[in-house]
């Protein structure tokens, strides 16, 4: 009997814990073995222009592989290819890649194993003079816009130095040869992940092994006006047969991004089917300092998704996508209506996006909150139950005694 009770208790506890763990969304605990290489297969005499490189991050799963390719030849592009074999490799035909980047000069072999591929290209940085302080580039007149910075014309610092093999990150910093970028630069940091986790710095996006993170920031760039605000233009290139949309979800958890209760997701799903095959996920917040505190956060907005006619000027994308790829474009703008703080106040603005495949990861509560709630609600509940039993027992005992004291 006692073993039966013990078994019952254990099974109940097991079920409860399993349920809570499922609720916590810890289901995506799978791991990948991630390796990073620079310019795979590049041998002299072929040489890339200074500061330009191709980073290949290979995430090996149990029965599939996820390739990330980051290249800043032309506009910086992040290409993600998912194959269902563990033996897939990236093959670059360097001569044609360097000279003309003709279609097909970059391949993932075996081509039949490629399940899904899409690319996120960072094309322009827009700057506009926000005279009315609306922080809405859609409503601002075209005349207020300064000529945009075309990232395909940027000069980048050496990739080799900023490649971190153990931390699985690589940083690209660069700018134009104009006076705006004399004291500052635009930087991108790409991070790959082996398993579930969260980055320390805000916005601490929750990632899993199927995602990678792109952190973009403008540091020290001289604004061309006192009321300048910035917007970033991104383009997404993918195979035909997929459609893209931007969803904005509400989230009750703002632990890691105080006062931000939304999550934006730019997802790509096949036409006529449900299910999300690839995503770009971000929180609509940008930070005005490198190590931000609560007040340094500023909301950011995204524009409508627009279909583009031409493929962006990125060698990587032009080399990879052979058959009529589709391009969509989106602007991310920073600031809020009547925001008294402009870019010129801190000369820093940063934004982070998570790029990955499959369903976008869902946020979950931190352990601390779970513990507080459990202990906080559990203790009075336990005492209520125990006390209730105690009171009930006493009442029964006093009833059964048969005597009512006459007082």
């Amino acid at each position, binding site marked *: 009997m006692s073993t039966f009770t013990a078994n019952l208790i254990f099974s109940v506890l097991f079920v409860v814990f399993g349920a809570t763990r499922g609720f916590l969304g810890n289901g995506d605990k799978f791991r990948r073995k991630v390796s990073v290489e620079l310019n795979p297969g590049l041998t002299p005499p072929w040489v890339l222009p200074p500061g330009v490189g191709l980073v290949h991050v290979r995430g090996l799963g149990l029965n599939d592989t996820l390739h990330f390719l980051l290249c800043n030849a032309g506009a910086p592009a992040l290409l993600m290819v998912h194959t269902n074999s563990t033996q897939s490799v990236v093959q670059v035909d360097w001569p044609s890649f360097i000279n003309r980047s003709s279609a097909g000069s970059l391949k993932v072999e075996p081509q039949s194993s490629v399940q899904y591929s899409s690319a996120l290209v960072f094309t322009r940085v827009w700057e506009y003079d926000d005279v009315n302080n609306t922080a809405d580039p859609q409503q601002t007149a075209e005349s207020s816009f300064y000529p945009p910075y075309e990232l395909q014309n940027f000069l980048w610092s050496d990739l080799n130095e900023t490649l971190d093999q153990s931390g699985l990150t690589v940083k690209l910093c660069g700018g134009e040869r104009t006076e705006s970028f004399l004291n500052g630069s635009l930087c991108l940091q790409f991070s790959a992940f082996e398993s579930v986790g969260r980055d320390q710095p805000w916005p601490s996006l929750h990632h899993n092994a199927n995602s990678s993170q792109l952190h973009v920031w403008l540091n020290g760039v001289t604004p061309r006006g006192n009321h300048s605000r910035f917007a970033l233009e991104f383009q997404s290139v993918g195979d035909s047969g997929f459609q893209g949309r931007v969803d904005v979800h509400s989230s009750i958890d703002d632990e890691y991004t105080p006062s931000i*209760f939304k999550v934006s997701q730019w997802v790509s799903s096949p036409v006529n089917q449900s299910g999300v095959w690839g995503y770009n996920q971000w929180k609509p917040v940008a930070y005005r300092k490198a190590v931000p505190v609560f007040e340094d956060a500023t909301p950011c907005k995204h524009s409508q998704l627009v279909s583009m006619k031409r493929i962006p000027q990125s060698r990587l994308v032009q080399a990879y996508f052979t058959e009529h790829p589709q391009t969509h474009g989106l602007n991310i703008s920073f600031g809020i209506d009547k925001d008294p703080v402009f870019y010129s106040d801190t000369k820093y603005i940063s934004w982070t996006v998570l790029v990955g495949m499959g369903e976008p990861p869902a946020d979950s509560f931190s352990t601390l909150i779970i513990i507080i709630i459990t202990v906080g609600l559990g203790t009075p509940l336990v005492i209520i139950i125990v*006390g209730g039993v105690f009171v009930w027992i006493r009442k029964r005992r006093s009833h059964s005694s048969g005597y009512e004291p006459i007082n």
Partner: protein
Amino acid sequence: MAERREYEGLLDEDEDDDGVPRHLFPLCDPTHLLHRILVLVFMCFLGFGSYFCYDNPAALQTQVIQDMSLNTASFMQLYAWYSWPNVVLCFLGGFLLDRVFGIRLGTIIFSLFVLLGQIIFAAGALANHFWLMNLGRFVFGIGGESLAVAQNTYAVNWFKGKELNLVFGLQLSMARVGSTVNMNVIGWVYGRIEAMLGSTGHTTLGITLMIAASTCLFSLICALILGFLDRRAEKILHKEQGRTGEVIKLTDVKDFPVSLWLIFIICVAYYVAIFPFIGLGQVFFIEKFAFTTVQARAINSIVYIISAPASPLLGFMVDRTGRNILWVMLAVITTLLSHMMLAFTFWNPWIAMCLLGLSYSLLACALWPMVAFVVPEHQLGTAYGFMQSIQNLGLALMSMAAGSILDLKGYLFLEVFFIACLCLALLAVVLLYLYNYYKEGELNLSASARASRIKSENGHQLRDGGPRHREQKPLLENKTKEPGLDSAFTHQDEMDLLERRSAEEEHQTSQTIMCLSDGGYELQNHQMVTDMENNITVNTHPLESTVLIIQHDWRDFLQTQDILEKRSPSPPSLSSDKMSTSI
């Protein structure tokens, strides 16, 4: 003669002796209802300024943070500095008003502090010095809470007996009106100043706060007028200045029963989850629920708006049913539910905030009177003073903690923190219930059970009636010399009530019985003295008159409990805070 005069107060329009001048206009006649209504108007507006200005930071949260370049933790210091002086002043307020300044001068001084504090606060914004703003709030805090005590003392002095509950209710409603008006109006004022000046910034903020200080000036004028009217009435009616009647003896703290300490924990843990939340609520609603600023301000003030009408109703209900602990438990659980709704769901926050308003009113009605049940009368002043003091201490600390939590971890974590505090309060309530059950205390009795318990206690008194008579006599005469908590309300022991009633019965004054529930204390006391002089015993009453006696006793007991609960925590304590006694 003098003390009897005091007891008779201003109700006796039939008393024609001592030549109360009858040739005054009704409005100028201190005994006439119209004059007292005039005084009531000034009394209500006395606290308006401090309530209006107390929640200025909450209503202007975004502007203050932006214009003074603060983070939330620094912003919450504005509230913390208000609470700090009141940790000590709760003990001293009554003493200062009774012994040092007197009610009239004391009220004027405290109004001056309120005005000065708000001016310093505004000046700090104009000069862009945040430390000066904190200093302003500190000075404002010195005046604010004590002004509430003074307001109550005036009320008791002028309206003791008949309309006291109504007056307290009105004062409370005015307090709530002040807070609500502030929440909804000051933002608009800021917008107008901004339009005038063309930009935001600390100057705009400073000018807005200076305009808010005009309400404090208005309150000061009311205080001056009240002082004048009170002095005039005193000269005409030959009555004494009102006294708060509080006796604070810190050594009593060691005698506090366990129940009282549990009540303290409930009080602190509960209000910590209300007032800092309202202080930070506006931006929460804007960010999470995408409210506009105007909507966010409106929903933030709904707690006050609801508590104004709900408090008297809920107070009536709690009085009629008793069982205070269960009501407190219900209030805590409802607040817990409403915080959980706000934290973990996106449901319409109006539901949660209305629930919050109702449960907040319910708790105030049920919690504060419990102190009077567990503590003997001579310690009530100390108990309430201590309760307010630690409440202010808790609020000062937790306001700053809430600000820091928000800065580091966001709103969800802040809500979880509030939920944890409420769970602590719930734990304390449950323990209090069990302890009370175990000790067979009277905190959770129904109204009828309480009445029967009083009856049985009075029965004991009845049986040994003789000696008590002699005890009562000197007690009565000492009333005015020793400002016990009772003197203000002429509330003697329940035994006295019984004897008084029985004495009435003996004289077959059925009319006096009728107006008893309205508090014809004074008359009774008068009778009482006569009866005792005539050595009336109370042993020879038929059953039904005893029942009638009990009924009247109970009603009076309820009334005194009402008064006690309302006056204790300087009810319309400004700060919409702590003194939530604001029922």
